[in-house]
């Protein structure tokens, strides 16, 4: 399973591609690709969005579903989705509805 992630061009915010092809600021809103064809659609949209100068550093990342929640396999991506593990007051985790615990 994969989701498509990137950083928004104008402010660098970590974002994930949602089902409606908008870039969501939190991981739970991401569209999860369950097969290769879906992954290719995500990647193609990412390429297009980068070409439109909306985002940079577009990447498909591996995730799994844990109790219905999207959890990236790599710690790096879990930290991107939450914020610095040493500053709970910063990043997505500091929002009213916490996005995801990193560790």
């Amino acid at each position: 399973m994969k989701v498509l992630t990137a950083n928004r061009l104008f402010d660098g915010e970590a974002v994930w591609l949602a089902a409606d092809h908008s870039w969501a600021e939190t991981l739970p809103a991401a569209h999860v690709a369950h097969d290769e064809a879906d992954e290719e659609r995500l990647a193609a949209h990412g390429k297009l969005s980068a070409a439109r100068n909306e985002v940079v550093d577009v990447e498909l990342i591996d995730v799994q579903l844990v109790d219905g929640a999207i959890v990236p396999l790599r710690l790096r991506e879990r930290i991107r989705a939450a914020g610095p593990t040493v500053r709970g007051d910063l990043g997505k985790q500091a929002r009213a509805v916490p996005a995801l615990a990193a560790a």
Partner: protein
Amino acid sequence: MYRYDEFDRAFVEARVAQFRDQVERRLKGEITEDQFKPLRLQNGVYLQLHAYMLRVAIPYGTLSSRQLRMLAHIARTYDKGYGHFTTRQNIQFHWPALAEIPDALADLASVEMHALQTSGNCIRNISADHFAGAAADEVADPRPYAEILRQWSSAHPEFSFLPRKFKIAFTGAERDRAAIQTYDIGLHLKRNAEGELGFAVWVGGGQGRTPILAKKIRDFLPHEELLSYVTAIVRVYNLEGRRDNKWKARIKIMVHELGAAEFARLVEAEWENLKGGDLSLPQADIDAIEAYFAPPALPDRPEGDAAVRAARLDSRTFSDWLDRNVVTHRHPDYAAVTVSLKAIGETPGDISDAQMDAVADIAERYGFGEIRVSHEQNLVLPHVARADLPAVHDALVAQGLATSNIDLISDIIACPGLDYCSLANARSIPVAQQIALRFSSLERQREIGELKLNISGCINACGHHHVGHIGILGVEKKGGELYQVTLGGAADEHASLGEIVGRGFGPEEIVDAVETIVETYLSLRHDRAERFIDLYRRLGAAPFKEALYGAEARVA
């Protein structure tokens, strides 16, 4: 302190305007990311895990109160209320929006600061001993020469696209506090038998995945030939250094592969064409730059002895701080104070906007408005009258900046690691915090004595783990974090590279492993005078391997 002349000011302002235009064109989509990326890097703008990162240059680690207040303003206005001082004496802001960075750079330019050459394959910000101009053991202040090199290397057309990044450091004392042997070029300002000033020239040091200590290729270079000789070195490297493989492109690889003697021969041959020519520094020019670095007039303050004696008796906390964080100044009535950015359990090198403002105020009131950044990620007030030490201590305590732990186990160097950095493989900061908390008793830390513990979150070694007495390198293994331990590194004039002690440790094991290493040292040392590094050099890794791995080590 150095003050911009009209050329400096016009140059920096022009670069801000140029970058503003580049950012606008990027946001409008007129240039692609591939076109823009090298431009933003040339202006110190990286993209990290959570956001862009702006790295601001602090030449030779010297700041005025006015400049530090501006850094506080940048943290407040464009970032999230804090900054991170790095092992290269720079400061990083981890959250600026690209669209606002030109405004931040314009604000920085108003106090003669910039982010130029803090990235890219050019000559980077030049670093120096953080006690320069104050240290009692110094031959001469090396910063005028660092400033001369800064001017020469800024946008130098020949050296803007080197095979790889290039770093230069200065010390003006035998005791190396600037880690010059870990630099591409290390320059040690000294006097020869005739009393003339010159440099011992070290070349080819570096950390990263291939750590190599620099080799001394010249014992004495007359100071007026600084530019001609450094030009010869960088030219030889620029022409002959490898560009086919990023991992073999640093000058250290070239010096290592050719051998120091052959490399020196090439440099000397190139220098034959340069010395005594246009690049030789006229004494009047050296004098003009030196005048900027003239130390503040330090009036005699003989009442300091009595004041310090009284405060020592009055406060154990002050007394501990005096012993650890205050060092001798060349003027007997003064001292240099290290402001610890290593409060127990906090992020090494991080400082809030309010703390920056407070340090700027304290420096202005008690320290002639001057602040230094150390490569160990602390701040320094280089000229404080001993009579004012109690007041400075109290003011720092109020800001949480008076932890008496300089050179102790909790004075940890740590890179931002995987909490921020897109290159990192593992986290550094939580490991630093947990070690500091485990050894939180300052009494225990003092009993252990000098122990430099450095942590990097990847093999690029921004956290200087190769030269920590105890070095910790975070790697990614099977999707998790693993920490390799090296022992016996040192970054001073007796520099050495640490040796891997054995298999790595998981995040839950690494603090115990450090404690085992420390307890092993304590059980084996002759006495308190034998520091950890001394003991390691006497006994080697064997007792530590035995303590860490036991039977496993004996089988191996």
